[in-house]
């Protein structure tokens, strides 16, 4: 692998004016606007391993941070491993991912989160931060040992029963209170279970015609309404995962105006796809929360643009073929997302003019790093003295999505066969080019 000392010529940080950037031993050491160049290369290290790359006017952003990834290990290594998921993340431009706790065994003890953390260290392609379960076994009944996970080597700060909702109000209240002791955050999967028994897709016009059991928007919105009020009452902070409805956006907007400490996430697929996709009964479009209506998609895009929604999280949910290649009702929920997230954000938000590239950095890197309590090392400004966790993006490239060409161990991408804009050219983890020229670097 190439060294972590190099110069990127002619790149555009946040999509603005082109600069030359020098990185020395993984730290940004010089930034020179191209227009001011006088022909001399500046002070370049005399290191033999120092290298240079023409950035071709591509866009340079802080490496992305995904607060919402399912790496499946331990337990479902047939779907994904920490290593294969790390590869997918690096190819997607991520330098840090948060691995959800719904593994087998569940990441509800210091032992399991340390195992996941160590697997991430060994893979060494992105920073892997385990998310701890809120409750023992994700059962929603008894708080897991949140303090032990916080104090482990994994230093867990984000806790979630994702895949399940912490539906019991008093358990949710206690969790929100308890994590204040170590500046933790509860990331809620908002789904009132009694309203979604057997639910298969968004409840509405399409579900009524298809005869698939409906998943009402209110099942999500009622939990979010309750949780923001709980967070206000106990003075804690709440992160709402994968917001999918207009009503949810409006409740969160109201809560923020009221001063409640709430942040919210939207997934790329909820920005791009609607419940009309279910008409072919292809379970590749089956996901939790379900794809909603075009009106919901509009509200999500507006919410992300105006800051009501803070982050884009992938909810990367790999599944083996047999869990998707079956009848809709029997198929697993979820879609892969790490290797398509940026492109979907470009298509749905940047190209329509809803987000600038600086906004992309905010929603995909800076804010998720802050919510994940890792902003001392990720989501940093592109500035001298900062760690070179960076992603270089070719915004004009078009690519056809082919799951067989992806690094994730699973193939359940809903964007298969579609052309999407934007391509990750290189990903730098503390200066090391883990992805170079669009492919994973060979490990030395």
């Amino acid at each position, binding site marked *: 692998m190439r060294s972590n000392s190099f110069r990127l010529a002619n790149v555009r940080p946040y999509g603005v004016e082109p600069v030359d950037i020098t990185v020395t031993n993984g730290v940004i050491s010089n930034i020179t606007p191209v227009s001011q160049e006088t022909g001399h290369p500046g002070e370049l290290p005399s290191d033999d391993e120092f290298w240079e790359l023409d950035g071709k006017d591509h866009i340079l952003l802080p490496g992305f941070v995904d607060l919402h990834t399912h790496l499946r290990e331990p337990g479902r290594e047939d779907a994904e491993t920490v290593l294969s998921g790390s590869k997918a993340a690096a190819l997607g431009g991520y330098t840090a991912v948060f691995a959800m706790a719904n593994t087998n065994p569940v990441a509800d003890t210091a032992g399991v989160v340390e195992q996941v953390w160590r697997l991430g260290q060994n893979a060494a392609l992105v920073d892997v931060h385990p998310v701890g379960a809120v409750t023992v076994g994700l059962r929603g009944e008894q708080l897991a040992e949140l303090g032990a996970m916080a104090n482990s080597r994994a230093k867990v700060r984000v806790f979630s029963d994702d895949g399940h909702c912490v539906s019991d109000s008093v358990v949710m209240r206690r969790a929100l209170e308890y994590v204040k002791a170590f500046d933790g955050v509860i990331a809620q999967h908002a789904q009132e279970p009694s309203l979604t028994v057997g639910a298969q897709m968004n409840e509405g016009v399409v*579900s009524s*015609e298809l*005869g698939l059991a409906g998943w009402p928007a209110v099942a999500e919105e009622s939990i979010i309404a309750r949780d923001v009020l709980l967070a206000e009452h106990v003075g804690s902070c709440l992160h709402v995962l994968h917001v999918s409805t207009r009503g949810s956006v409006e409740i969160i907007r109201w809560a923020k105006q009221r001063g409640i400490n709430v942040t919210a996430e939207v997934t790329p697929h909820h920005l791009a796809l609607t419940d009309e996709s279910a008409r072919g*009964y*292809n379970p590749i479009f089956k996901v939790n929360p379900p794809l909603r209506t075009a009106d919901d998609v509009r509200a999500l895009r507006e919410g992300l643009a105006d800051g009501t929604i803070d982050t884009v999280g992938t909810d990367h949910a790999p599944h083996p073929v047999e869990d998707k*290649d079956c*009848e809709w*009702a*029997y198929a697993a929920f979820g879609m892969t997302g790490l290797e398509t997230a940026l492109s979907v954000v470009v298509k749905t938000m940047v190209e329509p003019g809803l987000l600038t590239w600086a906004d992309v950095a905010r929603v995909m890197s800076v804010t998720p790093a802050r919510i994940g309590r890792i902003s001392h090392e990720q989501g940093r400004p592109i500035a001298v003295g900062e760690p070179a966790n960076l992603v270089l993006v070719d915004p004009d490239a078009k690519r056809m999505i082919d799951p067989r060409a992806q690094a994730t161990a699973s193939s359940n991408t809903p964007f298969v066969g579609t052309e999407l804009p934007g391509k990750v050219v290189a990903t730098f983890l503390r200066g090391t080019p883990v992805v170079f020229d669009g492919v994973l670097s060979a490990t030395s």
Partner: protein
Amino acid sequence: MQHLLSTAELSRADAIDILDTAAQMAATQEREIKKLPTLRGRTVVNLFFEDSTRTRISFETAAKRLSADVINFSAKGSSASKGESLKDTALTLNAMGADAVVVRSAASGAAHQLAHSGWLTGSSFYGSDHPGVAILNAGDGTHQHPTQALLDAYTMRRHLVGPDALGQGLDGLKVAIVGDVLHSRVARSNVWLLKTLGADVTLVAPPTLLPVGAETWPAKLSYDLDATLAAKPDAVMMLRVQRERMGGGSSAFLPSAQEYTRLYGLDRKRLEVLPKHGIVLHPGPMNRGLEISAEAADSPQSVIVEQVANGVAVRMAALYLLLAGKE
């Protein structure tokens, strides 16, 4: 027509063609020798993942009367219960050389997937349609049961338009469909077919048994059976209501069976409100005393038994149109 999956994708011309062909088939069934040589050498597979003796026997009879070879494959459960998956079953059937697959499944969309997923060719997921095998949906979850709607339409046309009504639809007829619309593939199939054939449909149900979104369907919605009957419908179709929808628990949609019968059951008094020419349909099996009284079920206006006979003719027509003339 390559498959018969949903009445929503059936054109008026195709629907009337099936009804007219069914009339010809029914005429042959009056003869002493009922068997026709039309589908000799063809193989029809009845693939039933859900118990339904009535529907399976109807399809089996239809195929045999057309001289097709019939293979019955019954598999309880599903890939969910880790039995053989629909996909593997489909591959097996294809290897045996099926010309048509009649599929019944508890999973909405199963027939559509069988037709369009590429499973029958062993190709990759959603690769390509199979060129040869015709899929007949014999009921998929709470989605569609097109031959049921076609036999209902055939029965209505015979009684309300005329026995020799070839080429005609059901234009202007008023049809009330009463009961558990939410869980009914029969209701969904009928709404779209009757609309295509020009009938005026009213769905009558308690609000808990009408799906959210039904307000966009091509039908009127009503919570009031008596008001609907007062408008003198030409046909009343009573849907089966399962007893587990009643009473306590989170799976309940209704307070009690008695209340349902009082508000939505077709009893003697309501039967008397029907116009003299009006007919009573039920897809079966009936819950006598719940959604339909014995007086209504056994009245001269009831065509419920005839529906069963017409089912064979309609399924013969569907098999014939899908398989004959195709080489």
